[in-house]
């Protein structure tokens, strides 16, 4: 392909990705708006004498997803060695594992999805986010496959997957701060 065509494709996929991420952002923004309304219309938070879940596991998840983003950036910096990519994938898996752990501990702490608005929010939001993480992991897996069957991978794919992954990281960070810490 000619260079012109190449950076043509680059621009196109960038535009596409930006629009896509805007849509995803609106999805999470709406959830956040919902949270804000519940949060500020209820006098005491958490309501109905609920206790906040311990911050331990969520913080670990935050750490893992942060590191995974870092390692992906590293991978993007030097595409030659693939360790960055594997690390990202691994940390992503760890994040998911932690999420499941988190949900089971919630249950053991007596916070259920059906037990009032507080539980609903924590569960529903993490569910939605986790669903996206899984999708992103599938993307990463597919990309790893690409490498192994060493077909030619365009840089766009890599940067776009990256954008999506970092985006999910940011979303998690916001969720962590708003619904767990504050």
């Amino acid at each position, binding site marked *: 392909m000619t260079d*012109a*065509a190449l*950076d*043509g*494709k680059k*621009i*196109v996929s960038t*535009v*596409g990705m930006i*629009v*896509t991420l*805007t*849509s*995803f*952002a*609106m*999805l*999470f923004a*709406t*959830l956040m*708006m*919902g949270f804000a*309304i*519940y949060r500020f*219309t209820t006098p005491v938070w958490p*309501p*109905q004498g609920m206790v906040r879940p311990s911050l331990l596991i969520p913080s670990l998840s935050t750490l893992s997803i942060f590191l995974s983003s870092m390692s992906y950036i590293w991978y993007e910096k030097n595409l030659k060695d693939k360790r960055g990519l594997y690390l990202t994938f691994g940390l992503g898996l760890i994040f998911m594992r932690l999420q499941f752990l988190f949900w089971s501990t919630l249950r053991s702490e007596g916070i*259920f*999805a*059906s*037990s*009032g*608005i*507080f*539980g*609903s*929010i924590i*569960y*529903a939001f993490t*569910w*939605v986010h986790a669903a996206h993480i899984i999708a992103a992991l599938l993307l990463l897996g597919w990309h790893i496959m690409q490498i192994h069957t060493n077909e030619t991978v365009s840089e766009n794919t890599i940067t776009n997957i990256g954008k999506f992954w970092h985006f999910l990281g940011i979303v998690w960070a916001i969720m962590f701060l708003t619904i767990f810490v504050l």
Partner: protein
Amino acid sequence: MAFFEQHIHDAPTTFLSKYVFSFDHKVIGKQFLWYGIIFLGLGGMMALLIRWTLAFPGQPFPVLGQYLFPQTNGVVPPDTYAMLFTMHGTIMIFYAITPILIGAFGNFCIPLMIGARDMVFPTLNMLSFWLAVVSAIILVASLFTPLGAAAGGWVSYPTLSLLAGSPGIGQTMWTIALFILGVSSTMGAVNYIATIITLRAPGMGYFDMPLTIWGLWLTAVLNAIFLPVLGAGLLLLTFDRVLGTTFFAAGAAATSGSGDPLLFQHVFWIFGHPEVYILILPAWGIVSDLLSFFSRKPAFGAKSTALAMTSVTLLSMLVYGHHMYTTQMSPLLTQSFMMLTMTISIPSAVFFANWLGTLWKGSIRFDTPMLFSLGVVFVFGLGGLTGLYLATVTTDIYLHDTYFVVGHFHYTMAASVLLGGFAATYFWFPKMFGRMLNEFWGKVHFWITIAGLNGVFMGMMILGYAGMHRRLYNPFIYEFLQKLIPLNTFVTVSAITMGAAQIIFVWNFIYSMFKGPVASQNPWNVGTLEWTIPSPAPHYNFKDIPIVKCGPHEIGNPNLVGRDFQYQTEEVAKA
């Protein structure tokens, strides 16, 4: 400007790759058109059932009745009535009008009119169609579930739409179907936006795009931003129904800890109001173009029309509260929403004036597409202006949830957008199928339709002002509504008339596809890019990408010799 040139793929050969799982935007467009027309038929039949019940309560629906409702030997039962208007609303908005205006003409027109060989993401395009099909299957299947389909109105407010209010699986399927459709439409929107930004033929600036493209583009922007909002709402609703969360549960429905049903209304209308402009923006664009093409003169103030549409798009994000006046928001909110809603009529008036300016001193040809476009100007005048009664809080306190609202939005959607869709169909049919639709029957279709729909929707307005509220199985158990029986009968008769007209259309459509007179390359003598190529358009659209040298409406220039219009690929003729 085009950032790169898509290369010509060789034509698909197998039946599957050609007609079913096609990447070609034109084929996908046609698929969406069929999808839309079929659902228009379905939704229309439901409308007729609704109308029948309202005009002749307790009387069996002729012919079809005893097959549809054997247990009541032909009479529509009350619970079914609720399903009927819910499904009618949902189907007409999301499965009939959206596919026709955005799915069909969006796909068909965008690449052709901006001089591209296809959408930027053909695969995504195909996916978007087949997701829409999946969603349609789920929705239709919900009609056959034990407790029947969703019955909470097309807005399906909780707590009625929660398990407590509607235990059937139908409501859940409705929610999921709509979510999937949302994903599909968002995919489409991403595709449209990216295509229009990156694939415009060299030389085509934004203001050289036909206004049709402007409309479709703004629509896509609104879709990409606000469908996810609905998506979030639907997700939470599904969680509430399936996984026992309590976001919207309150009152008796709330087992433990209470959510807030009102939140859903906010989320729904944050999406819902932009949605109504999502529906009408393409129609506005199409009409603005056609008026100019058939008055044989440039679109009056095309640039200001485009800007007006843009400002409507922006304003539409700030007015959703006018659907919730009677929920008693804080007075301050109510007042600001009233004010903001009002401002929308400024840009609207701008392009109305431009439309009339386009007709002014033109040389008007009354071909069918033009008739429908003129029809849109008429009915949208009514539809839009009646919006103002609803925009003022105090009158809305009385009119809210009456047939006045129903009349308003049928004038805007079922009249303006529908006619816009028909205009587009008659106009682009030659480029789609290489044959012309029958002019005579087209005109018949127009006159019957416009007569019928004014009967129906003006009737609804009057009913509403007389106090008849919405979603009533049998209004006449109220004394103050009994005097309205004759009027309701009249509305129903008009609706049947209108329906009949649509059968003419469908017949004309199918017949002309195969037997219609063969269309020339440029039957309407207009200069936009799609008419520079043969009809029907070849699968690669443009053998070599055109270079754009002038705007889309260069018609009637006195310096032109031979023909009274020029193609966008030509320099503006100078003396």
